[in-house]
């Protein structure tokens, strides 16, 4: 039964792809070299290049069990439920939390020479400054996308996140429905650290958001924002740089701005859980992802900034896929940009306040 179905699927792929398996398999015996022949990878949905997985399988003669999650918290719950994976791709603050809780094992750097390809911007990030536990996968910023025809660029550039409190644009603003990203804008607009625990600063940010809610009456959305901006439904939105790059490539009227007050620098990185069954192959996989070819395929398919410096250069160089797209390349070395830190208490507090903002 199983073979029959697989054969059928393969047949369909032959029609679609013009090849089944394609090319010669390598003659590595993975059992001998790595002690196992399947690799369990847990990554974000729609976060991998079209041929990345199958190329790795062919090259190393192994099978990848690929699963996807939609949020860091969801992935964390799955791990607590006893699921075993070999490679995960959580975000910065979740990696910090997992390191604190001893859930990760150090990378075997002797197996990952491609760490030398890392772009400068993803080196030395506070959650894991020496890449002891993690190897960056994608990274980016949070920036403002706006419609050049309806919004005065001078307003955005001079006001930064405060443009979201500009009554001129009432009813034309998308705000991302997440306490983390919303409070980040407020903290940054007020000149505080986005990881502040100071009660007065939190109160001030809360009032900033209340004021924003009153003045521009934003639509609170999640990922509809991408399609909403592509079709030009509203004029201003705060989005992740990778999504901004996509919006800009689809709609010429849109422009992108990174506020001078600083913003969120984020990174999703590959880690190996402490209970991984196949850590050797996992290290090999991480090295493969950091290679130029795999990184290029990933970044070209997904549109997020690659952690590989050669790919970043190639993509944004003249004639590259993101040539002239200001949102693709993250801002590097700007001291006011910060990485989100894990803080359970603060998160809960902000979540409660955020609900109040939306209901006001």
């Amino acid at each position: 039964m199983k073979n029959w179905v697989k054969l059928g699927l393969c047949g369909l792929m032959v029609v679609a792809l013009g090849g089944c398996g394609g090319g010669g398999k390598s003659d590595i015996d993975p059992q001998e070299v790595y002690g196992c022949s399947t690799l369990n990878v847990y990554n974000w949905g729609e976060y991998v290049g079209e041929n990345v997985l199958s190329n790795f399988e062919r090259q190393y003669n192994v099978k990848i069990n690929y699963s996807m999650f939609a949020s860091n918290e969801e992935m964390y719950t799955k791990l607590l439920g006893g699921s075993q994976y070999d490679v995960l791709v959580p975000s910065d603050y979740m990696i910090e939390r997992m390191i604190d809780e001893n859930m990760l094992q150090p990378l075997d750097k002797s197996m990952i020479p491609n760490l030398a390809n890392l772009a400068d911007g993803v080196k030395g990030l506070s959650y894991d400054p020496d890449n002891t536990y993690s190897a960056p996968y994608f990274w980016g910023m949070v920036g403002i996308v706006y419609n050049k025809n309806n919004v005065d660029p001078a307003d955005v550039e001079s006001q930064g996140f405060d443009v979201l409190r500009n009554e001129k644009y009432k009813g034309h603003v998308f705000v991302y429905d997440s306490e983390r990203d919303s409070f980040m804008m407020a903290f940054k607009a007020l000149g505080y650290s986005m990881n502040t625990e100071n009660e007065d600063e939190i109160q001030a940010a809360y009032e900033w958001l209340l004021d924003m809610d009153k003045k521009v009456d934003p639509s609170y959305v999640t990922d509809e924002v991408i399609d909403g901006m592509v079709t030009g439904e509203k004029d201003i939105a705060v989005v992740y740089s990778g999504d901004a790059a996509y919006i800009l490539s689809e709609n010429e009227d849109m422009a992108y701005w990174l506020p001078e007050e600083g913003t969120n620098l984020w990174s999703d990185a590959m880690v190996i859980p402490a209970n991984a069954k196949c850590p050797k192959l996992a290290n090999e996989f991480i090295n493969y992802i950091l290679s130029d070819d795999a990184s290029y395929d990933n970044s070209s398919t997904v549109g997020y900034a690659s952690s590989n410096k050669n790919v970043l250069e190639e993509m944004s160089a003249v004639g590259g896929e993101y040539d002239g797209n200001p949102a693709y390349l993250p801002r590097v070395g700007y001291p006011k940009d910060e990485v989100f830190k894990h803080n359970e208490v603060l998160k809960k507090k902000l979540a409660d306040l955020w609900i109040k903002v939306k209901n006001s």
Partner: protein
Amino acid sequence: MKKLKSLFSRFYLLLVLAFFYLPILYVIVFSFNDSKSLSKFTGFSLQWYEKMFANRTIMESIYYTVVIAVIATVVSTIVGTIAAIGLSKSRRIVKELTLQINNLPMMNPEIVTAIGLMLLFTSLNIKTGFMTLLLAHIAFCIPYVMLSIMPKLRQMDPNLPEAALDLGATPWQALTKVIVPEIMPGIVSGALIAFTMSFDDFVISFFTTGPGINNISIYVYSMYKRINPSINALSTIIVVMITVVLILVNVVPLMKERKLKKNEKLG
């Protein structure tokens, strides 16, 4: 006045139908979209179908969805039928109690069942994966099968199997030649419900599956960051398949009946 009333009722019906079918129509139209946009139709193309067949994670999730749904339907229908027949012969108090317990998983929010199953598997140290997913699906399908078979058993004349036994049938023959044909409509509808429940289940599957085993629902959910229009293509194919099956289910018995009548006339 009467005319107005009928006009209104027609309009109302139209509204209901539009509410049902517009979303499906929308998905079908956008599966042929030329661009990645989910709200702007830019031109006709088959690229999302092509990409769907080339995408191994989608194909794998279809494979697991179908295999799990088929096995879960077969097993839960057999188990549910046997359980229902057995219950119909047991003492009243046992029967009532079991039926109440049987109803519990259906009334219970799915998330409770899901977390419960996950904790059970973890505490027993069973690795989640294909087997746990299948067991969970069988478990939540059985109550529906039993629920749809019980009324048929109640309607059946209890003297029928006894008469069969009196006339020399073995118990096995009485079961397969008398009881099962009598309750067949219940079994079929139970199996259909089980299949649909298993096919589109997300909550329970999400918590009981393991590395690398995803069904269509889990796959679609994980795409929340960026919807891949291939999913429109996939939905369209499923809609077409279901329409064909529905037409067959409704037309074949009609044709059989007509044939039967013709034969009768001839005879």
